[in-house]
């Protein structure tokens, strides 16, 4: 292997690039800021490619490991590494960042440099979360990534943005601070190590395991978000600008789910097994109840936000059945949801930029004025409802298969999402796109321009490719998921 620290590059290229973009300053330099931001985003994506290309799919060990002492006083290390579970998220994240920069190209006219810089810095920080192998390093990235999103929602968001931004921040902060105490406890128990890999091997009695499990559950459950701590998400989505929604849905929600795989399950396996019914119940509530909630939404963004919660319920469900199909299916679902929900929010953004409304009732007959857009939107709506041959189907199908092995009735309940998902997505699609041209705004709509076509087309390709040939994705994660299951099966008591 080469000695180039690709993980550090994946983290610091966007962050330092973001600082550079910030330095272009006032809006007079906006064109420069945009071009620079695009260049940085592309560069940030390019440096993640070797992570996939050079990844040894046969190994479950951490790869591209970087280990340096950071704060020796508390034995905190700058310890990075990826395995099959995390590597894909770095690519997804870097990729989505390019989409976000493109999506904000024209819409954002106010404080462009700050907008672009916020997303680039956030992208770097989130890469840090996915690759951190030190508890404090993970926590630091986890918390720090709140700041840019808080600013993005608060500065460029909708009318109720202040409420949404603060709610988002405080909700996540509460969860993560409880996690911090769990991390400190593990630090103490392990005799002064913050290494996540050391913690995986640390024997723990049942009682602390349960407490740690709940601390993690709150931290990651808020982030996922799981019912009943999901209420910040619809608010944040509705108020956030398009780019904010995309990053939130495509990447930020995955952080919580990723945390379950990296922390909860391997560190406290016995508690995870014992409390799996709790998580499964919460997940099923998210899948079914939130699915119904999505059905009655009148605001498109809110609808997709609830659909995200429902889909993420599927992910946590897949994890806690402790079988290969479930976990891999959930991981595929996470990647797919990254593409699909990102695309859905971009589509809504395209409409919003033109009409300045997200209400379903304000639309109707969009297909007559925006045929190209309607075609893309159709594809993504289908993917969101899990149509075979789109990426949405693969993950859901695998999770349902895994659930059948686990318990028929759980599988049955989970499969309801296939109906509900189709119901709320397609019903919304029908009301927005088909029918007579509803009003003069819709009549005046212009179809998507080349830039919008570009990012929707790229995402459409991804959704189709993943739906038709998911092997490159599952291949990477196979060994790591295998190892995780083996590890989790061994009691730590």
């Amino acid at each position: 292997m080469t000695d180039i620290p690709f993980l550090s590059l994946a983290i610091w290229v966007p962050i330092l690039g973001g600082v550079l973009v910030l330095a272009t300053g006032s809006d007079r330099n906006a064109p420069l800021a945009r071009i620079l931001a695009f260049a940085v985003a592309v560069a940030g994506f390019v440096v993640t490619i070797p992570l996939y290309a050079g990844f040894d799919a046969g190994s479950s060990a951490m790869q591209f490991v970087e280990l340096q002492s950071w704060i020796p006083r508390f034995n905190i290390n700058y310890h990075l590494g990826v395995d099959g579970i995390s590597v894909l998220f770095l690519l997804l994240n870097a990729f989505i960042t390019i989409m976000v920069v493109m999506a904000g190209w024209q819409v954002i006219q106010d404080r462009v440099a700050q907008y672009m810089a916020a997303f680039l810095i956030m992208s770097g920080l989130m890469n840090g979360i996915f690759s951190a192998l030190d508890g404090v390093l993970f926590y630091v990235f986890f918390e720090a990534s709140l700041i840019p999103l808080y600013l993005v929602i608060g500065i460029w968001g909708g009318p109720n943005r202040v409420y949404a931004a603060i709610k988002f921040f405080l909700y996540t902060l509460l969860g993560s601070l409880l996690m911090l105490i769990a991390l400190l406890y593990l630090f103490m128990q392990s005799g002064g190590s913050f290494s996540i890999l050391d913690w995986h091997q640390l024997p723990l009695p049942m009682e602390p395991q349960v407490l740690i499990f709940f601390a993690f559950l709150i931290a990651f459950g808020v982030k996922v978000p799981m019912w009943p701590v999901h209420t910040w998400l619809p608010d944040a989505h509705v108020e956030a600008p398009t780019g904010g929604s995309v990053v939130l849905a495509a990447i930020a929600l995955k952080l919580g789910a990723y945390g379950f795989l990296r922390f909860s399950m391997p560190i406290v396996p016995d508690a995870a097994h014992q409390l799996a019914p709790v998580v499964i119940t919460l997940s099923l509530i998210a899948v079914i109840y939130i699915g119904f909630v999505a059905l009655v939404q009148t605001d498109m963004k809110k609808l997709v936000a609830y659909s995200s919660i429902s889909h993420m319920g599927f992910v946590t469900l897949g994890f806690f059945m402790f079988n290969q199909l479930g976990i891999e299916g959930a991981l595929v679902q996470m990647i797919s949801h990254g593409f699909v929900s990102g695309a859905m929010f971009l589509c809504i953004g395209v409409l919003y930029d033109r009409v300045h409304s997200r209400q379903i009732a304000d639309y109707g007959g969009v297909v007559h004025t925006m045929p190209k857009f309607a075609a893309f939107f159709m594809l993504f709506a289908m993917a969101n409802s899990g149509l075979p041959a789109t990426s949405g189907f693969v993950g859901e199908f695998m999770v349902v298969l895994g659930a059948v092995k686990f318990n028929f009735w759980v599988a049955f309940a989970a499969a309801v999402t296939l109906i509900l998902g189709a119901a709320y997505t397609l019903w919304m699609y029908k009301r927005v796109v088909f029918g007579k041209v509803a009003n003069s705004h819709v009549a005046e709509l212009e179809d998507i321009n080349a830039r919008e076509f570009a990012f929707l087309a790229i995402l459409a390709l991804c959704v189709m490719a993943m739906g038709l040939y998911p092997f490159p994705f599952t291949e990477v994660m196979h060994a790591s998921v295998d190892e995780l299951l083996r590890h989790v099966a061994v009691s730590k008591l």
Partner: protein
Amino acid sequence: MNFVVPDFYPAAAEIFVAVMALVIMLASTFARGVRWLGYALTQLTLIAAAFVTIFTMQGEVSYTFSNLFVSDLMGQFLKLVIFFSMAVALLYGRGYLADRNIDKPEYYLLALLMTLGMMVMVTANHMLPLYIGLEMMSLALYTMVAFDRDSGRSTEAAMKYFVLGALASGLLLYGMSMVYGATGSLELSGIAQAVYNQAANQTVLLFGLVFLVAGICFKLGVVPFHMWVPDVYQGAPTAVTLVIATAPKLAAFAMAIRLLVWGLFDLAAQWQTMLMLIAVASIVLGNLAAIAQQNIKRMLAYSGISHMGFVVLGLLAGVVDGDRHFALNAYSSAMFYAVSYVIMSLASFGMVILLSRAGFEAENVDDFKGLNKRSPWFALMMMFVMFSMAGIPFFIGFFAKLAVLQAVVAAGYFWLAVVVVIMSVIGAFYYLRVVKVMYFDAPEDTSAIRAPAEVRVLLSANGLAIAALGVAPQMLMSLCAYALLASL
């Protein structure tokens, strides 16, 4: 009876500052016309005193003046931070004072005397110099608060500060007298020896301890001795608030270490219980009350109460069931927290001063409205400070909280950690509100920000330091641990 000439060497910095204070007094009397003289000489003195401290630094602990005075690494380190923070505070405040026509040499003279008082506190090995240093610092501070003598509010604040401060001094003295009565010694090592031998009358000793803790808590500004903090912070000229909110906290921290750890370490189980209540009450009240504040100085005052609660939290985690292994870890975490707080506090009040100008006090949170439009750079700096105070990484405030929480968890006080963490979330709200006001709201006051170049540069450096120390806190953390290691 033979007279031994004491060793002046360890006290070189104190002597230097004392002499310079007299020089400045004379110089400003004879050269009244030269307005900058007092300021310049004071700054030079602070810088030179730092050099004197560094050059006379000794690795080991040395005593002089018949054991009244101790020179150790902790004292020297704290003195350096005190010089630094005083120099920065005076620099930030000068323009503010000039705008209000109170940029007088006497002000700087008082500041220097106050510095001297803090130095004496930090290096005291005996109750007497400790008390003298404390009074020297406090009396200078009372006068500084009242320095804007035409302002009713400042006078009121000074009066309040003075009356309550005198009460606290009384409590402290009372405690000292009881401890003296019980142990027969005013020297810290003598007290420790007597307590260790259980030669002291426990009842009297414990009563004394309660009063000592009360005195320390008053100076730290923690619940239930916090009443003066918001009023004085709000009423004092902002330049003076800046001084009160920074260096004296370090001196109070040193006083806590000297009295409680050096003198009464064997009573740790007793004073830790007191400190636990105090810490929790401070963090709860500080954070809750800060939410309701519209005045930013008041808000920062309450936030300061909760920050000092964290320092106390570090102090109480030193001894667990008689096991003293945790002491170094806990006390150095507390010291790291105190130093971090001073750095953050300098920047936060520095920003308030930056936004003020002649005839206008930037006092309300709303005065920060739309700062991002007016000056994106300083909005960014203020955002660093706010997130740092809220304990969000990558800023120094996070590592300060991490260090203290780590000590608390290591001592086994999980419930305490959980309470504190929940209060931190509540506390995050008012810091977020400042960020919200700066970034999400439109400016009401669109005038450009005018400040001398040196203030701009230093304030920027201060803000960047908060971020830089947050990325690389190791250096400062080890310094704190190393300084304490030699002193425990």
